[in-house]
């Protein structure tokens, strides 16, 4: 499935990605970073990325902000208006996971509750470099760096009290490792 998606991306989006920038209730932080990416300093147009004003012209939808009660329907309609091979990028922690106010009334949750999301770029807001990196991962220029980490503790992190360390000394009970605890 992943390889298929990557091959499809290479075939379909090899030349240029036209992005549509959809904010469904974010705080504008991620919007500013996305516009930052399009400036000459972080020139995203060298990858063929162009910002378009209508979802009907777009290949990629950049979602910012969580899915809200008021904008969920509009977001879904904008997604359905995009022509067939389409990608959705969730930019920022609101779009990836629902944001800081994930449990409040107007917020439904992450945008993946409404749309199928292909790539996630977490950050609050993500740096412009992080957005470029996400696009490069999608285009197959670089590999992703993250992997789930699982760690099991094998011993106690702090020294344990044990009755075996107790000794009698001059009619007193002394604990030997007292300085370590």
């Amino acid at each position, binding site marked *: 499935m*992943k390889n298929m*998606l990557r091959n499809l991306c290479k075939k379909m989006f090899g030349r240029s990605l036209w992005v549509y920038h959809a904010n469904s209730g974010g705080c504008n932080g991620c919007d500013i970073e996305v516009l930052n990416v399009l400036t*000459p*300093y*972080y*020139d995203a147009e*060298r990858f063929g990325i162009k910002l378009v004003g209508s979802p009907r012209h777009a290949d990629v939808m950049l979602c910012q902000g969580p899915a809200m*009660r008021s904008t*969920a*329907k509009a977001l*879904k309609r904008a997604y359905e208006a995009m022509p067939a091979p389409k990608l959705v990028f969730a930019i920022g*922690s*609101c779009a*990836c*996971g*629902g*944001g*800081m106010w*994930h*449990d409040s009334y107007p917020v*439904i*949750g*992450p945008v*993946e509750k*409404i749309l199928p999301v*292909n*790539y*996630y*770029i*977490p*950050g*609050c807001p*993500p*740096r412009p*470099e*992080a957005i*470029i*990196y*996400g696009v*490069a*991962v999608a285009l197959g*220029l*670089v590999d*992703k*760096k*993250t*992997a*789930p*980490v*699982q*760690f*099991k*503790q094998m011993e*106690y*992190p*702090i020294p*344990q*009290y*044990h*009755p075996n360390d107790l000794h009698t000394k001059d009619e007193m009970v002394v604990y030997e490792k007292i300085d370590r605890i």
Partner: protein
Amino acid sequence: MSVLSKLKEAIVCLKAGRVTLPYPAQPRPAPPQFRGRPIFDATKCIGCGGCASNCPAREILVLDVCQEIRILKYLGRRCAYCGRCADVCPEKAITMSLEFENATNSIGDISQTLELFMSTCQRCGRCFKESSPLEQLKMKGYRFDDLKNDRWIFKSQSYLGDQPVVDDIKLDLE
């Protein structure tokens, strides 16, 4: 006039030179004060759960499997990289790293799971109690977040009835 202005523009452009970063080809490290992905050090962690209690996005889940083992899971989906977990950690087990290249195609990739030993009182076998009422308020007792569905249980009654828990909103999108 227009030719002159074009020439002026060309001179300005030539003066500026090349400003574009060669970013994905060459690495560009973040500044040292940058707060990137938090890294959890399981060798230092004592499992107090202060990070989970102080996380404003409720992204650190704690599940007590039994009295002795506690599972601490950082999801990172809606982490705002505020650094409060690193501030509150008494053992400095959490560091805000400079990693910002976290883009992935599955959101589970940025999770970190720690399985920790909890020390109990060696005489009575129960957990320790914090000394001051403020410290007790920080601890919320036995924690049982839902690790299977990656969600935070905020009420002890959530499992009992049909009451909805966080992230369980159903909405018609005709």
